[in-house]
């Protein structure tokens, strides 16, 4: 608990608001996830337990979707793992946010798009770790909780499209990486990568286009 209190003091109010907002939108997407899983015929506990244990939204949607459509569960696992392979480069980029000792296990589990982008946006190690931990614990609660509420609510809350909620995830990530994109070489690599990913997404299964975007890094060597 003392750690949480020092995290509150370390982080400025703006960042705390961002974390609260991220957890709020994660919970709302969780609601639609739980609702669609139950509507597809899965028991209530499945999206909740999967949410807590996998803690990577897009791979879970894919897993539940493929299994619900009658696909082989292990084909669904393969598709989910492909989507989650981006956690390898995430961990290579910000290994310092994982604290040593007994916290290492939990810290590793908390690695996701939101926690990594928040850590990247912070100027020093203390704030990187505090932002990562708080946002991670928040999503660990918000995602399964949202899935639980969605499972209870059933089919009425399935459509996140009507409220434009599907636009909030890319908007939040974009807002948080904008400062990093001010650097020219990073921006060029990111734009090339995004273009590669968009073209690839027409032909390739989810997850692979984002990994292919890493080819944008080659521009570093072209420029240098």
């Amino acid at each position, binding site marked *: 608990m003392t750690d949480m209190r020092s995290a509150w003091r370390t982080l400025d109010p703006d960042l705390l608001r*961002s974390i609260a907002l991220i957890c709020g939108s994660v919970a709302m997407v969780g609601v639609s996830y739980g609702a669609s899983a139950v509507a597809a015929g899965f028991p209530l506990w499945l999206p909740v337990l999967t949410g807590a244990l996998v803690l990577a939204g897009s791979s879970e949607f894919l897993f539940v979707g493929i299994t619900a459509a009658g696909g082989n569960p292990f084909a669904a696992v393969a598709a989910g*793992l492909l989507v989650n392979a981006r956690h390898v480069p995430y961990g290579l*980029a910000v290994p310092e946010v994982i604290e040593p000792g007994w916290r290492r296990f939990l810290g590793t589990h908390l690695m996701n798009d939101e926690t990594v982008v928040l850590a*990247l946006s912070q100027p020093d190690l203390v704030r990187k770790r505090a932002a990562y931990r708080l946002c991670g614990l928040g999503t660990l609660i918000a995602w399964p909780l949202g899935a639980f509420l969605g499972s209870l609510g059933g089919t009425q809350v399935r459509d996140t499209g009507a409220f434009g909620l599907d*636009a909030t995830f890319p908007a939040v990530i974009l807002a*948080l990486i904008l400062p990093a994109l001010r650097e020219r070489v990073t921006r060029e690599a990111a734009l090339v990568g995004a273009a590669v990913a968009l073209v690839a997404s027409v032909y390739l299964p989810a997850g692979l286009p984002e990994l292919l975007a890493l080819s944008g*890094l080659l521009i570093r060597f072209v420029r240098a």
Partner: protein
Amino acid sequence: MTGNRVLLVSAMVTLAAGTFVFRLIGPLLRSRVEFPPLARRLLETAAVVLLTALVATTALTQGHEFAGYARPAGVAVGGLLAWRKAPILVVVIAAAATTALLRLAL
């Protein structure tokens, strides 16, 4: 049904374990191997490149298809506001509202 349930749960646990291993690889590798400064910078850029690609694909595509104009328009409005240093709450509300209103109108 019981067999199905066992299969489903073992698949889910496999997905969870595999994802955990992916999360573990980066920090483990970085604690064992000393990367030169250029490689370290490259790795940090890699995360930004990945996240940008994720923004592009989640904003513009749904499955293998174009997601329609409403969602990317909302993301663009949010991005523009963020670029003008608007608070993140404003960014999110503007993005969702733009997308929702465009869906109503179109």
